């Protein structure tokens, strides 16, 4: 009886961790996407006028991606810690 309860609670925690990991990457991705929409649009605009902005435009566009890396780290911790 106790053993079954322990197994169920472990499964529950693992399930919650998996959902948490998914949310960490998913929400961070949505946030980064929202941030990138404006930067990407501006970068494309600047590059369309002057190709010299290609490098700088790309760099600025991927800056919000760093937040996804944080999300990914959190999700990996969640997945491997539990």
């Amino acid at each position, binding site marked *: 009886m106790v053993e079954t309860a322990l197994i169920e609670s472990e499964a529950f925690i693992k399930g919650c961790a998996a959902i948490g990991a998914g949310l960490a990457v998913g929400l961070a991705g949505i946030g980064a996407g929202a941030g990138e*929409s404006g*930067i*990407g*649009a*501006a970068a494309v*605009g*600047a590059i*369309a006028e002057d190709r010299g902005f290609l490098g700088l435009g790309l760099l600025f566009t991927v800056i919000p991606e760093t937040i996804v890396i944080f999300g990914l780290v959190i999700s990996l911790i969640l997945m491997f810690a539990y």
Partner: protein
Amino acid sequence: MISRTKAAYAYIVARTKVMKSKLLKPEDFRKLLNMSFDEVMRFLEETEYKKEIDEMAYKFSGPKLLDYALFSNLAKTYRKIYTVSFGDAKILIGQYLRRWDVWNLINIIRGKNANLPAEIVEETLVPAGEFSFEILHSMFSKELNELIKELEGTIYSEALSKIGSAPMNLIEDELWKAYYKALLSVKANDFESRVFTNFVRMEIDLRNIKTILRLKAEGDTAEEIIARIVPGGYELTEEEARKLATMSFEEIIKSLEGFWFWKISTIQDLGRAEIELDKIWIEAIARRAGNYPLSVLPVLQYIVLKKVEVDDLRILGWGKWHGIPNEEIEKEMVII
């Protein structure tokens, strides 16, 4: 939806910022002032105007070539801004650029009244508004009453219906009033509408004060001045403008203290005062565009600055061609 609108503005604003960085700098103008006309043309052949100068060099020469190149480049640039913009920005930019429809219509009517050949009138046309060059060409080939019929139902129809019964300057004023009335009734989202209409209202202020000062200096009556005032000013409301129209020139100067556009203490030369007003306007737009970077204002700022550059280059070119001293040419230019 919000982010889509912001992305639309980010795109068009970034494009116009890059275009703005390619405008001639004050130091370029100072360099150009020390050149001869041919050197000015050679300099311009290394700038954004190269294509237009090369295109018509076989047909025109001298300042006429310069005029053609500048006007064609202006129209091309404005059309490009309109084409690459989308969403609310496209609507607002399109409406603002209709000023060139008014400009073209006035030139066509003036040309027809003076029986000028099509080539001369076409040189002055800037097809940057709603009417393409082909439409404008077909307009010129029509009789005036046919033209009025064709434009029935547009914002210009009321003004154009007065052709024949009213003097040309009144019809021109009516066309400008119709243009500004349409601009002030443009519907966009609340923030955009507010920012855009405030810009237009400030432009109306400037237009009205220039009209009042010029007509007052020429000795026109208060009624004549009031008839030419464009309603819808920002600080200089129609009522204020009417009040100013009844005052003497000196009283007007005193009463203008405190208005956003008035930083001039005395007026010795009206032409210089108008240039000063233009500089104040450009500074005001720059401030506002800086305050609202993701709006239509930076685009409108570029539209205004491009026109100022073209005007400056025309003054410079014609001045050089006629051998006017550098100091005199510089005084007529709006260099910021």
